[in-house]
């Protein structure tokens, strides 16, 4: 019976992660912006067997509230075993590629807000000398491509940050998992028509995340074949890569 914090709890993957923990009779805190949706998820998890589920309604992009949010989390839960961070937005490269304000917002939504929270939460976990942080980054961070390099560079920064944090927290017994999913079939991508074999269900991704968090894996590519795909993509010489349409 673990204690679980889920930040960005209304995301499709986060919901599936929460379901799996609920079936294990765990205690959960859900954090997100939309109170109605959080309440629906709370009720769902209670039926699925969760020991207890509480909700904290916060807009995660407002970093001036992060101190307060962190206080709240640790007031509700003295010792979290797992902290998942799943919020984020897939920005349109065409919009933010030529517009710094939009690009900055995308960096905030996909990386800076994570770092702001991680700084605060990791301090607490360091003091507790326990816990696992599982943060959803993306395969897009492995190499910049013209079709989505604002998102990609945000995730590259996040992944590099997680590497450093893992290194620092290791001595304190706190683990950091960097989750790199590929394409996920979520309501945000509800237009089913463009989907093919590379698309994974949120259920599958959630199962992989939970297994990796339990096994204290450092980096998870999910589904596994993204490891192969990204190994190839990372190894294409830049002199060739810059000519490709990716």
């Amino acid at each position, binding site marked *: 019976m673990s204690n679980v914090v889920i930040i960005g709890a209304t995301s499709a993957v986060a919901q599936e992660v929460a379901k799996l923990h609920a*079936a294990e009779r765990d205690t959960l805190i859900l954090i997100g912006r939309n109170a*109605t949706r959080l309440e629906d998820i709370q009720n*769902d998890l209670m039926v*699925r067997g969760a020991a207890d589920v509480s909700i904290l309604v916060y807009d995660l992009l407002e970093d001036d509230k992060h101190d307060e949010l962190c206080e709240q989390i640790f007031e509700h839960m003295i010792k979290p075993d797992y902290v998942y961070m799943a919020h984020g937005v897939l920005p349109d490269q065409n919009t933010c590629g030529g517009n710094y304000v939009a690009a900055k917002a995308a960096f905030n939504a996909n990386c800076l807000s994570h770092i702001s929270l991680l700084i605060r939460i990791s301090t607490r976990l360091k003091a507790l000398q326990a816990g696992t942080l599982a943060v959803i980054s993306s395969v897009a961070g492995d190499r910049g491509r013209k079709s989505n390099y604002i998102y990609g560079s945000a995730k590259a920064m996040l992944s590099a940050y997680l590497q450093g944090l893992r290194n620092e927290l290791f001595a304190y017994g706190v683990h950091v998992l960097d989750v790199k999913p590929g394409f996920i079939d979520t*309501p945000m991508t509800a237009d089913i028509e463009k989907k093919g074999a590379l698309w994974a269900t949120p259920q599958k991704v959630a199962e992989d995340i939970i297994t990796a968090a339990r096994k204290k894996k450092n980096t998870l590519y999910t589904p596994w074949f993204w490891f192969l795909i990204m190994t190839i993509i990372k190894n294409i010489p830049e002199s060739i890569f810059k000519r490709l349409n990716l």
Partner: protein
Amino acid sequence: MVKYEPWGRYPKAEQRAISIVDRYAMLDNDSTWLPFGNGRSYGDSCLNSDGTLVHTQYLNKYLAFDSSTGILRCESGIKFCEIIDTVLPMGWFLPVTPGTKFVTVGGAIANDVHGKNHHVDGCFGHFVVQFELLRSDGTRLICSPTENEALFKATIGGLGLTGLIVWADIQLKPVKSAYLDVETVPYASLDEFRQLSEASKENFVYTVAWVDCLARGENLGRGIFLRANHAEHQGPPQRVKKKLTVPIDFPGRSLNKYTIKAFNHLYYWNGARNAGLSKQHYDPYFYPLDGINNWNRIYGGAGFLQYQFVVPSDNYDAIREIMACIASAGAGSFLAVLKEFGEIPSLGMLSFPRKGVCLALDFPNHGKQTFELLDHLDEYVMAAGGAIYPAKDARMSRQAFQQFFPALDNFRAHVDPAFCSDFWLRVA
């Protein structure tokens, strides 16, 4: 446009599809809609090739469960397999289940599904306490036997045409274990089936028979009768078997009357060998085919037609004639399923189950000859005053449908003007 095929893989359609994002979302009015759960309808009742399918996969939340009364409130895209996993440890089970656990709650209501306990409990619709229906004009209606009663009765068995079921309250059934006490009785003829059904209906909640459809003459109707009740105590722990998958389409005629005949013989022989009492886990008992992923591929790319009909029980001659006709055509396939429905009247205007004897079997799609045979069988069903199950159908005529479902005109008034299906265009 995406390629869709129903569970029977006939007919196939290219069409638009979207997912409804959550239970607060609305439907635009730039298309016609058809809710799509998990695609387990066998024919074109789950296709809408001129319009758009609305996947309900993200309507997958429980809203509440009262473990003292067993009333579960859940969104309509949730599947039966998930409900069992959640409620069985608390001592509850589905009140009625079809032969697959991969159907959604919405699909179960829209087809008013039945199970092996029809003679005792009726259909799934009898356990629907109420539901919320989203209409294309944006209204959301609570429907129950006392509120919006006509729309309630139109939606149960209404093939998704009256609007989108968003969530429903379902009355579950208390059980003491995950197991069933099963008695297997081989029998030699249709008369024996009839006697067994009669003798079992008082003391067994679940009754069904597997029939060898290729047996002719005095063996006509022979099969294995299975009768069962929920067990008081757990059985031996279930071994977790690796799920089998049919990885590719079988070539066209790998299922022919010789291979099928051999299989049916073996099955009968095996059933006779295992006659008697046993304790079975619910999964292999209720869902034997769910253990094989994509079993519908064994019929090849052309697919198959499932033929399921009911005829009044005082008319065993009709079922005898139909079975003789199937056996002499040598066209029937694997194990057919035979079951006596009970007297509880179905709630839905277009519900299929009614008092009588019901037979279901698959026919590999061999084109014209298969369709002609089924049209011929329709004549017997019509003459006997029976009906064909829309959830399994891909070919019945307009005239047949209108005879089988006399409440059709009444039903029409409740169809949402922006909802449609290929089945509906074909028969109504």
